[in-house]
């Protein structure tokens, strides 16, 4: 019986999916013929990190006469795959396409454009009766490598003079599933620690040397909150909402900084100065006295050459809105608004998108 129900659901799922997209496209093409201004429908999928911001921004965009954007929060990797398969019009991802994905995308629909649309900071939350715990990159790497197992370890004590650290075991928590947050976090550890780089590496999901995996940022923050001696990483918003203590991290300039929207924005502004041409910048451990070291961009990824003229134009308009007017919603939702230099670079990237061979 259960198997049958499962099979039925599977069948229904398989049956629904293509029909949904086909109705979507037929609707767009028919409406596009009658009205040029409104209702074009755009399909997007990807990063869960972006979802709260997108809900707000796309809603506001539609209200002021923009296209209707349907965004599915299925995870960065999934968003990229759906873009490559042509199921969605744009993907959103917390990590840039790797070489393999770039090749796959080029084979499917030509080169892609990465447009940074927001920035976020990753908090290091901990559960100890100590306020304002200070950590640096090497200590954090040692914790996640399993080399530091007690909170009163000499390395941590050296960073926190005068603080009485308990003899509690360190309970390392990480994401169970692949995620953009993990990508930013492991990129940071790889940038700081050669050992991490060679043993584990930086990716959306890695082979963790120690610790327990919890699902989603809410899972990790919940686990840290529940476990005395726990330590975990998650998007800053979760630390604020759940009142979890966040460690102060030593940045590239030797300052200890708490995670903040401003700290992420400062790190991003520093990154804009030497941004690569494809805007695939990973700016962990950024320079600057106020920069927070674990921060990163999130990108909207689209094909550079759009085939459908109406849709292509709609995508360009939508991107412009997200990069400029949409940024006003960021701060309230714990995202860092894009600094001006990044917006300028984004404009250039958006201008490079061609519609039916025309810019």
């Amino acid at each position, binding site marked *: 019986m259960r*198997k*049958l129900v499962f*099979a039925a659901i*599977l*069948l229904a799922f398989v049956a629904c999916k293509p029909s949904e997209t086909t109705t979507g496209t037929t609707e767009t093409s028919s409406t596009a013929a009658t009205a040029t201004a409104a209702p074009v429908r755009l399909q997007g999928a990807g990063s869960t990190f972006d979802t709260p911001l997108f809900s707000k921004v796309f809603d506001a965009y539609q209200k002021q006469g923009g296209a209707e954007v349907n965004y599915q929060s*299925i*995870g*960065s*990797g*999934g968003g*990229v*795959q759906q873009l490559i398969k042509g199921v969605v019009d744009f993907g959103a991802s917390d990590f840039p396409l*790797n070489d*393999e*994905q770039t090749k796959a995308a080029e084979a499917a629909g030509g080169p892609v454009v990465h447009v940074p649309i927001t920035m976020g900071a990753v908090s290091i939350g901990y559960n100890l009766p100590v306020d304002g715990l200070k950590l640096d990159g090497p200590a954090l790497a040692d914790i996640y490598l399993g080399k530091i197992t007690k909170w009163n370890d000499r390395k941590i004590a050296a960073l926190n003079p005068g603080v009485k650290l308990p003899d509690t*075991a360190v*309970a390392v928590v990480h994401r*169970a*599933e*692949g*995620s953009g947050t993990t990508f930013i976090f492991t990129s940071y550890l790889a940038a700081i620690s050669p050992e991490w780089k060679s043993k*584990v*590496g*930086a*990716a*959306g*999901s*890695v*082979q*963790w040397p120690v*610790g*327990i*995996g*919890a*699902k989603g940022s809410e*899972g990790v923050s*919940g*686990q840290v909150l*529940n*476990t005395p001696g*726990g330590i975990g990483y998650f998007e800053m918003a979760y630390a604020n909402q759940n009142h979890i203590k966040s460690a102060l991290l030593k940045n590239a300039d030797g300052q200890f900084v708490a995670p903040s929207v401003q700290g992420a924005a400062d790190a991003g502004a520093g990154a804009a100065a030497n941004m690569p041409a494809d805007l695939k910048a990973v700016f962990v451990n950024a320079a600057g006295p106020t920069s927070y070291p674990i921060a990163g961009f999130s990108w909207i990824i689209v094909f550079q050459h759009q085939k459908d003229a109406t849709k292509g134009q709609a995508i360009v308009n939508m991107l412009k809105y997200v990069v400029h007017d949409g940024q006003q919603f960021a701060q309230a939702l714990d995202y860092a608004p894009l600094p001006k230099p990044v917006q300028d670079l984004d404009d250039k990237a958006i201008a490079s998108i061609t519609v039916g061979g025309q810019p």
Partner: protein
Amino acid sequence: MRRSSDDRWFRIGTGVFPALVLAIAAGIAYELTTDSMLSIRKFGLSFWTGKTWDPVSGVFGGYPFIWGTLYSSILALILSTPIALGIAIFISELSPRMLRTPLTYLTELLAAIPSIVYGLWGIFVLTPLIRKLEVLTPDWLKKVPLFSGPPVGVGMGTAAVILSIMVVPFTSSVAREILKNVPVAQREAAYALGATRWEAIKVAIGYGKTGMIGAIMLGLGRALGETMAVTMVIGNAPIVSLSLFKPQYTMAAVIANEFTEAADELYLHALIEIGLLLFIITIVVNVLSRLLIWTATRRFARVIVMPAAVEEPEEAVA
């Protein structure tokens, strides 16, 4: 004439549906195989025994997940079988008539609770409890492999407890049916020989032994595939260990967790191959349990002969 042709169409018409089920099962097997081809080609049979799961360098082995799935399911069976059989025996043999329906209903209600609810209960109630237990564990006991590990609360033991609760209604309802089907003559014969009530029940259990094993195997099938509740409390770390306190991982949980962000092809194919292995293991377990139940029911249909000796009923748990 007409009637027979009507019957034929009726047979063909209804025959489509079971054929559909077979086609779907075959379709799933085909899809799982073709979609995991990259991984099957690259790792071959070593995928079953490989202990490394490293998405960064593209090395995948399913052994920790197979281990976690089987170990958690077997632990769950060890915990749930006595409880489930106790419930079944009480309801079918000892319970006052008035209590019978509400008790049956309540145990079956356990099966209706969505697994995510079990998972939440696990996180908020069971995990802190187990953590207390882990903290209280004396050091000498921690040297025993079964109880080693850090006191984090989540881990194999927590998952096994949750699973066992979820399995109980499945095992107990089938076991109850089996006991109900034991011919009255069996018990009467036992009483006639001067058996006590307990001894008469033992005869009944001995008679339905194969069916009981089938009931337990059905529970095993359920435990193998459980995803949500397990992933919420097992700790999700691909470790092969006997310890009840260490975080581990199951096949269903790794698929649920990593599928959305599996960005490159090989990674995706490796995950699908895990799905294929799970499919194979569940089918084998299900076929075995069906076979056992089938042989049991066939025995009921035969002329009743008292088993030569009353055997111990519960030796076949594992």
